């Protein structure tokens, strides 16, 4: 329905007072980046309320999702390097036209440079940058990154780089021997900031942290017995459909015959679950890398030991084993390359050698079956980089109880 509020014209005629209704202002605000909105919060009280309102934050992230960036970084390595990468439609053809976000570490500073338009703007360093020398990104969700120290995995942070807000998580009960972590959001709670982190220790203890409660809880039944999570450095936990997923194998004596499967942790019910792979995949020994494509869980599975061919299997209907579908086979003549994730235009990111012999970020187009080199040098060619989807958002990683 049209808004019936009239233009306010009280007082003297010389003074303009437009008083656009809130719904029109929201229309205007939705066109701005988080950085612009952070400035506009300083205009007046009602704008500050409007911009920080939960439903606005939600609308803003929904329309930002279409502008999601690709974020890459080499985990657990110095110098710290974090790049945010946003592609235009023809990324592979015209890499130089892309907005490119790059971060680097000088004197152990972690900083993000957003290049929007002509002027590069520097995002303020997170205060924890100096504490975190060797870090891993556990995940990216609703504009918030979850990071942990590689040498002390009980040191965990949630950070929204767009609004420069972070929280240092309290230490979990089992702070030693944490081996795996997963990050996600309780998508049924109705709050975009109901973030959770799960930890699994080497002796199969498991705990879940809830940002809203700002506390840890031990999962009484622990991690399922007789299952080993994959320790491949190129495999990262994947959050989709309210659950975080890892590749795993059933423990057995003959290592090469142990069947593969996927283990998930449901952030709503806080339980571990198993997802079976298609038979061919579960018994083949090639590396398996989890990912998400169009909201579906998927696996890049190496066909042979030398890893020159990968198959992409997509679970079209979540949780339905029969829905696993092989959607493409990717072949690159040389060895030692691996898929990293997806571009927004249907391509596949990979890390490997370019025609001129340099290790770089590649994109593969399934329809033409061709690889394209990005003008994107990897300073650390042998370190597997991680590619994540990142959305700019106003979601603050702050427990509600602290706001009250």
């Amino acid at each position, binding site marked *: 329905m049209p*808004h019936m509020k009239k*233009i306010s014209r009280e007082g003297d005629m010389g003074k303009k007072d437009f008083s656009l209704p809130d719904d029109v202002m929201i229309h205007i605000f939705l066109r701005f980046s988080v950085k612009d909105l952070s400035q506009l919060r300083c205009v007046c009280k009602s704008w500050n309320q409007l911009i920080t309102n939960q439903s606005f934050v939600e609308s803003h992230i929904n329309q930002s999702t279409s502008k999601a960036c690709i974020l890459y970084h080499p985990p657990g390595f110095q110098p710290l390097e974090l790049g945010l990468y946003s592609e235009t439609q023809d990324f592979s053809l015209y890499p130089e036209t892309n907005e490119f976000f790059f971060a680097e570490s000088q004197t152990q500073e972690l900083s993000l440079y957003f290049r929007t338009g002509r002027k590069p703007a*520097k995002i*303020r360093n997170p205060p924890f940058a100096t504490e975190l020398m060797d870090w891993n990104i556990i995940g990216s969700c609703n504009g918030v990154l979850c990071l942990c120290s590689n040498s002390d995995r009980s040191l965990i942070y949630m950070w929204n780089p767009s609004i*420069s807000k972070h929280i240092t998580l309290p230490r979990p009960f089992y702070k030693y021997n944490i081996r795996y972590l997963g990050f996600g959001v309780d998508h049924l709670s109705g709050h975009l900031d109901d973030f959770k982190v799960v930890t699994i220790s080497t002796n199969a203890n498991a705990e879940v942290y809830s940002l809203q409660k700002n506390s840890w809880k031990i999962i009484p039944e622990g991690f399922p017995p007789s299952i080993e999570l994959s320790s491949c450095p190129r495999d990262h936990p994947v959050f989709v459909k309210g659950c975080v997923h890892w590749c795993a194998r059933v423990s057995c004596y003959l290592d090469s015959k142990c069947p593969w499967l996927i283990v998930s942790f449901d952030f709503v019910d806080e339980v571990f679950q198993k997802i079976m792979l298609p038979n061919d995949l579960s018994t083949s020994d090639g590396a398996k890398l989890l990912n998400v494509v169009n909201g579906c869980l998927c696996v890049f599975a190496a066909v042979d030991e030398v890893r020159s061919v990968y198959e992409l299997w997509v679970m079209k209907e979540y949780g339905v084993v029969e829905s696993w579908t092989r959607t493409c086979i990717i072949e690159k003549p040389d060895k030692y390359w691996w898929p990293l994730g997806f571009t927004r235009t249907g391509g596949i990111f990979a890390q490997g050698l370019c025609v001129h012999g340099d290790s770089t970020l590649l994109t593969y187009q399934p329809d033409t079956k061709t690889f394209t080199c990005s003008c994107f040098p990897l300073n650390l060619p042998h370190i597997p980089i991680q590619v994540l989807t990142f959305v700019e958002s106003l979601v603050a990683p702050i427990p509600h109880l602290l706001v009250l």
Partner: protein
Amino acid sequence: MASSSSSSSTQVKKITLKAADGKHFEVEEPVAMEMETVKSFFVGNEDAMKDMVVPLLNVSSEHMPAILDFYRNHSEFRKRTPPPPAEEVKAFNEAFLENKSDEQLMEMIMAANFLNTKELLNFLTEAAANRIKNKSVEYVRAFFGIENDFTPEEEARIRAENEWAFDGLDED
């Protein structure tokens, strides 16, 4: 209905719209029906005759010709095959905004909001957003005629909290 052909030999039906200041505008029916507010006046209202005058309480007659011009051109753009080149649409849109003061732009946004037309509202809000993009807080306040209702302490606090966002502003 809005989709009825306007190129037929029969004369195009007209609908009379009455602006806030009482001035009447005769508008071709398909163009009038681009405005949801006008459409909802007739749709499902059996008693409403097409010769009734539709009152538009929040639209000043000053902006009616420009608004109608926008509807006429954009509905023509949409119907044309092949679609018009992007430059033609852009040129029209730029000409439309040329010489419009900030105040006129605001009034047209109010009108578009009242007329409930997505296309015009999107276009005008984007224009407003472009005019305040990368501008200082003071400029934005002046642009919208907004009074700063923060206390100096509150403003200092909220500015400090968002201080990082103030890099790279344009000159006012």
